[in-house]
């Protein structure tokens, strides 16, 4: 018998041998081809057969690959380069030290603002990661179509149109739509009008929210149709809030008179008489709650109108810091239903006060330059901490000398204290790293190490990354 024939015979018998052992029967009698090797002692023969069979099965038999294997497509290259190789370990360490998704998201947004992306071995967004910067759209879609079991990416043109809408995966479509909205707001709206109906409620909500970019009177008709006809309450609410931002609030009902009853407009001053809002403080918890519910349910224009004022006058006449709950309610109204001009007005007024929380609430609707300006002002004039400043500024601030602020002096004093611990102020150092410009990050590092911090101190990782990473981002 040839070697191959014998091997085949062994292979064919192996199934029977393993089955016999599985059931607890002896198997030596089945292996006639190894009769000589197994010998006459029945106990010894089973062990020898076991040794030979195991070696045969271990060396020659392995799981057969199914014929339907599919290869996933290449992970695409993004529009922004990956961070330089030398900085990858630092990025990985910051990612590993980020205990929550929010801080990881902050880091990737910071990198994107500076013109960089992560290496895909270090971090990739999930398909559903709506908070990831738009530059990662291709990777999100890659994750989506690999999870969906597809192997080839659909062909997409550069321009999103009604005809190729379905060829785009969700994240790329969102990114293309944002681009279109910036270039040609009407075309983007027309596209949404044509395609929105075929999307599910969650997708519709995300897509409609994109209209907040360059929102204008041209969008009113479309938003009104959504507010009236969309099937999803959340989409209706969003459309209503956007309409309010355009000065098209809903007709004020009876509730608005009830809300107005919690406030009064008085005049003050003898020569230059000006109006000021007087708060009719609620007397019971139920009243407090009622006022909050009424504030939540209205819009800025209706509220101001009920008091006989324009929104601008209302913001100017508001007496801040008297009723913090009312302050927060008004700011929420402005953020959700105010025009850009009203928002800027409110931000200007509030920034003069020591009201950091209110500025932070307004920040998401402000541009990066304004956010940076308010953060710098807060640091300088109101002594806010770096973490709060970073909340206001976002991730694209590039402040020139944040350490010169009062909080910087406090931080330096803190690290010089005798009982300073190695984990003290970790959040403040991280925020500093996100706030500073590259040059400022380099100078800040020097000053902190001169003040006694070790160069390798992990609290300085974000500053070190900022200092070492060339700023290739768009400057606003």
């Amino acid at each position: 018998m040839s070697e191959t024939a014998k091997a085949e015979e062994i292979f064919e018998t192996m199934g029977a041998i393993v089955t016999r052992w599985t059931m607890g029967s002896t198997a030596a009698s089945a292996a006639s081809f190894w009769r000589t090797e197994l010998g006459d002692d029945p106990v010894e023969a089973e062990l020898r057969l076991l040794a030979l069979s195991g070696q045969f099965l271990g060396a020659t038999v392995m799981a057969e690959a199914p014929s339907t294997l599919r290869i996933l497509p290449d992970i695409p290259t993004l529009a922004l380069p990956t961070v330089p190789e030398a900085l990858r370990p630092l990025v990985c360490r910051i990612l590993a030290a980020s205990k929550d998704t929010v801080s990881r998201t902050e880091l990737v947004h910071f990198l994107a603002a500076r013109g960089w992306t992560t290496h895909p071995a270090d971090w990739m967004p999930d398909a559903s990661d709506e908070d990831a910067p738009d530059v990662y759209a291709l990777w999100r879609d890659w994750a989506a179509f690999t999870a969906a079991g597809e192997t080839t990416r659909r062909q997409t043109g550069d321009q999103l149109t009604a005809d190729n809408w379905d060829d785009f995966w969700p994240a790329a479509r969102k990114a293309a739509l944002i681009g279109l909205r910036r270039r040609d707001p009407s075309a983007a709206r027309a596209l949404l009008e044509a395609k929105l109906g075929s999307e599910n409620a969650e997708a519709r909500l995300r897509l409609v929210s994109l209209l907040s970019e360059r929102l204008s009177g041209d969008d009113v008709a479309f938003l009104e149709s959504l507010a009236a006809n969309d099937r999803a309450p959340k989409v209706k609410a969003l459309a209503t809030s956007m309409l309010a931002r355009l000065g098209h609030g809903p007709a004020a009902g009876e509730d608005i008179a009830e809300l107005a009853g919690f406030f009064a407009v008085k005049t003050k001053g003898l020569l230059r008489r000006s109006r000021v809002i007087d708060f009719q403080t609620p007397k019971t918890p139920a009243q407090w709650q009622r006022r909050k519910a009424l504030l939540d349910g209205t819009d800025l224009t209706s509220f101001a109108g009920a008091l006989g004022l324009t929104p601008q006058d209302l913001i100017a006449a508001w007496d801040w810091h008297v009723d913090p709950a009312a302050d927060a309610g008004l700011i929420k109204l402005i953020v959700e239903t105010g025009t850009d001009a009203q928002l800027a007005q409110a931000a200007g007024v509030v920034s003069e006060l020591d009201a950091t929380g209110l500025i932070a609430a307004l920040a998401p609707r402000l541009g990066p330059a304004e956010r940076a300006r308010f953060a710098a002002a807060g640091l300088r004039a109101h002594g806010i901490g770096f973490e709060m400043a970073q909340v206001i500024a976002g991730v694209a601030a590039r402040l020139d000398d944040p350490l010169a602020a009062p909080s910087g002096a406090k931080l330096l004093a803190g690290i010089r204290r005798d009982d300073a611990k190695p984990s003290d102020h970790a959040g403040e150092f991280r925020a500093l790293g996100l706030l500073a410009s590259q040059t400022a990050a380099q100078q800040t590092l020097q000053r902190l190490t001169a003040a006694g911090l070790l160069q390798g101190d992990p609290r300085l990782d974000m500053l070190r990354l900022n200092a070492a990473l060339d700023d290739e981002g768009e400057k606003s």
Partner: protein
Amino acid sequence: MAIGLKAVEQLATDQSSLKAAAGLAKPAKWSGVGGSADGALIWGECAGSGANPYRVMADLRDLGNKCTCPSRKFPCKHVLGLLWLNAESIVPFVPADTPAWVSDWLGRRRGPSAARPPGAAAPSGEKDLHVARNVEPEAVEDPKDIARREAQAAKRNEDTERAILDALDALEQWIGDQLRLGLSGFIDDATARCRRIAARLVDGKAAALAGRIDELPARLLALAAGDRPRGTVVELAKLVLLARAFRATPRDAEIRRAVATSETRETVLADPRAPRIDAPWEVLAEQVQTRRDGLVSQTTWLLNLATSGPRFAILLDFFPASAGRRGSVFTPGERFQGELVFYPSQQPFRALLVRRDAADDTSALEWPVPDGSLSDALTRPLLAEPWAIELPLLLPQGRIARDDSGSAWWRSADGTATLPVAGNAEGLLSGTELTRTAAIWSGNRLTILAAQSTWGRIGGHV
């Protein structure tokens, strides 16, 4: 920032620590010694009794310190040794960027209170540097004593061998019983049955074999249910082969290592047959795992970047779980030029790190091409070591594919080989061409340690 020897003396917990530290305060024991530019931090790697070196670090401002050794003494002799090197300037502490492992420690430190300030009172007993420095003259031994000791050692060796052979008899008996009782019953009750025979093997001084059998149920469970009978036959067959190999050559160090215990570091270092390889190495992966027998194993896989020599090395250390969590010694992807001594074997794989050079010109080296054909690499090692459970492999160009159930397979670019992959192989690993892949083949699954691609190095999912 300078410290004096007085500080080392005060920091030591007892005279024996100080004495041990004196023995370590020699350049030959250390590699990778460095310090931060401001002189506040110092670090170094000290060769201990294990395969991996210990990483030692200290903050000179408050003498806070950390070492990766499992010693319960704080500070341990390695820290004292490092401080001693610094105090007496025995080696230069070259200013360098703080390594990641030092930064990690800094981030986790509990604060200065955790370290004893230099002026604090001595913790216990009287200690004296001068006494510690004194090398006690070796007593001249009586030749009769030597002869008696050698005879005792030979007797002990014989006793051990006898005990192991008895234990192996019990093992074979046990394997025969499992066949007779039916492997389906064995598969259902593998953990308890394996535990019993493992305990018998421990009593019989076959500790390595016992550890292997303790881990056997976990390996079976990792298989698809339908593949477990085959997997059981392969596992039990390897035990029979190993037992027979021991009976044939009980003094063979390689087989003894697989059955009983490994040689000590000193024995391997002194063995002229142990190959010493000075080469550029890349750390493929590191794994710290708690085993069923209560030991924690620390495994480091290394890839030899030179054109010849053993392609892989594994640094393996065990320590009791009660010694606490141990920090990583290496960072995956890290490269170094260094000398390894391999445990004598037909296929040198397990090794000890002898020396690690400071010079670092290894970054430009490419991963080597696989030495032979893949089918050879999968089977040839089994001719020499049929009981081996894991084979390191360097795979040629290939790619991860998925089957209908979402399981991952590695497929060679030429389509001739397709191997099942353990775990999910997600993200970048599955979305790019893998020019080279380093993996462990365990007879039925490929565990990817690391791979090279157009995106650069990708870590596996160990």
